[in-house]
């Protein structure tokens, strides 16, 4: 009777054994499993970048697609299996990149390493900006001033406190590039109206930049480029002076320092992890001091001469309009963005 029980227990154990084997969780290796080391961005495997080790293929572009069969995963056949079978792919195509890599790595040893084949819900961002400097040379074109353009080269320097927030300065140099337009001339001739015009010399702003959006595009189904969009805002100074058009014989203006506020929105298209093209629209807002459209009616004599009065056209106090005018200088900036240091490390593998 006791023997019958033992046989029954043995039979039950034999029946249950394969089920348990199928369902059991993989044993975690004992000992100190190394935490994921920081991964160099250069070793990252983007869809168009070679994966040096047995990294799973990057998720497809365009998103929301089913993940391709993991035929490239280690241990699932494919390339890793080839390593155990004497590199037959490399015998056929010795020039293949993975065969080049095989010269540098011992694929057999690499394949035996324990890896954590995890799938990350969110992929790494292409560029990590936190803790990096951005140098952004650009050229700005006037968008909204039809009478005189204020094109200018400029430079922005930003430091990214986090991945999405930066603080920095931006400056434009306008002097010598202010250019009255043909449109201004045609209007003056046709309607005999004088629109007060102003030259700009230089502007500088302290800005905060926020990067709320990023993404990637697949171009022609062939290449991929990453981009991000940002907004910025801050305040600074702009130096302007009126161009004497109402009474150019008497009026000679000096530069005025005016406080400005600026807001902008921009798009960065990355060529690589440290170089990008930048397109930005920025509105520099300030209260402009413009030339008075009326001319003093007093004697037109130099200051101090006989007959000079406070209402003389030569009196500088009569040159400016009594009110300041809120002005939007909207400019389109085209430039480059250089991130330093040029390389960075991800905290986690992809």
């Amino acid at each position: 009777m006791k023997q019958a029980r033992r046989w029954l227990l043995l039979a039950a154990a034999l029946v249950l054994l394969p089920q348990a084997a199928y369902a059991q969780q993989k044993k975690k290796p004992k000992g100190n499993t190394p935490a994921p080391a920081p991964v160099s961005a250069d070793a990252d495997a983007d869809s168009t970048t070679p994966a040096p080790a047995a990294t799973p293929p990057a998720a497809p572009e365009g998103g929301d697609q089913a993940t391709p069969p993991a035929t490239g995963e280690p241990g699932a056949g494919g390339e890793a299996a080839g390593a155990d079978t004497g590199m037959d792919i490399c015998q056929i195509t010795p020039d293949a990149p993975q065969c080049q890599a095989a010269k540098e790595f011992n694929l057999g040893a690499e394949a035996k390493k324990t890896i954590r084949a995890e799938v990350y819900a969110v992929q790494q961002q292409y560029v990590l900006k936190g803790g990096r400097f951005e140098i952004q040379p650009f050229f700005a074109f006037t968008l909204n001033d039809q009478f005189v353009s204020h094109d200018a080269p400029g430079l922005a320097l930003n430091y990214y406190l986090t991945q999405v927030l930066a603080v920095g300065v931006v400056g434009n140099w306008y002097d010598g590039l202010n250019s009255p337009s043909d449109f201004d001339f045609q209007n003056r001739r046709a309607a005999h109206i004088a629109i007060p015009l102003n030259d700009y010399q230089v502007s500088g702003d302290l800005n905060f930049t926020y990067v709320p959006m990023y993404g990637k595009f697949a171009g022609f189904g062939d290449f991929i480029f990453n981009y991000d969009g940002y907004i910025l805002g801050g305040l600074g100074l702009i130096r302007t002076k009126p161009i004497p058009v109402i009474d150019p014989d008497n009026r000679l203006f000096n530069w005025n320092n005016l406080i400005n506020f600026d807001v902008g929105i921009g798009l960065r298209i990355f060529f690589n992890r440290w170089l990008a093209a930048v397109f930005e629209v920025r509105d520099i807002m300030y209260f402009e001091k413009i030339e008075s459209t009326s001319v003093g009616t007093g004697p037109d004599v130099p200051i101090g001469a006989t007959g000079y009065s406070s209402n003389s056209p030569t009196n500088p106090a009569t040159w400016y309009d009594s009110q300041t005018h809120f002005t939007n200088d909207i400019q389109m900036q085209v430039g480059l963005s250089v991130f330093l240091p040029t390389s960075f490390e991800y905290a986690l593998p992809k």
Partner: protein
Amino acid sequence: MKLRFVKAALAACLAAAAMSSSRPARAQELQVTGPLKGAPAVRHLRLYRKGRFELAPTASFTLLDEYRRTLLVGGRATYYVTDWLGLGVWGAGGVWSETTTLTNEITSVAQPNVETAINVNHTGGCPGGNCSMPTAGAEPSTIGKSSSQSFANQTARLSWVVAPQATFIPFRGKLAIFNKIFVDTELSLAAGIAFVGIQERGYCGGGGQIPCYEPASFALASQTKFTWTFGVDLTFFPSNLVSFGIEYRALPFYWNPAGFDTRGGGPNGNYPDNQVNSNDDTFKFNQIVTLAVGFSFPTAPKLSE
């Protein structure tokens, strides 16, 4: 000092070149020879366009207008032969317009006189309608000041646009906003021809035409311009049926938005000739921003392999 700056700039350029030259080897294209060789880059891609018909109501705003801004309301109908090519038409009508600050300034400030009488409407300034071509030296007071709306009324308007066009979609991707919202995004280009209906000051001053200083000469006349057009469109697909798009479009053509006599006489025709005609047209890029809400049929897109 200057030499040092040049040297420093050259050194920086060399350093940048050296850094960039060492990078391509790391970024070279992967020549897949394993099991993934020949596999498509993307599987089960939603083909938002291929074989679908899109109807999109649109609202368009003109940009950087000199004398008058216009709001156009219309629609776009496109059939997409493939996921990257569509054929269609965009049409819109000007439903509202507003004068710019410059127009208001001219209206309120400009004094019609001997030089400006043919450029700025002097309605109300000719007692009894006895307008005659002012002679040089005439007092401006004999001509009068423009009435409050006179110049605004002579500025040109965009009436309608019809643009058969082809749409190319070379770029497809995703956009993440605040790391919370992920939306499929496409960047497309549209190009085609355009018929543009405008109203601008009628021709005057020529043989058989009324003199340009007559108040009646400032009346608007309809014209149709034929031109080309192109646009860049960013489209977001929050669902299979509905999409949202924002488009920048240019409608370049010659016209005379102010109704001024600016050219036709003197050397090279660069001076006024007391006539308003096609010589006075100037090239304008005519930029427009369009917002669109697209509805695609059939409502479910196909999937790639």
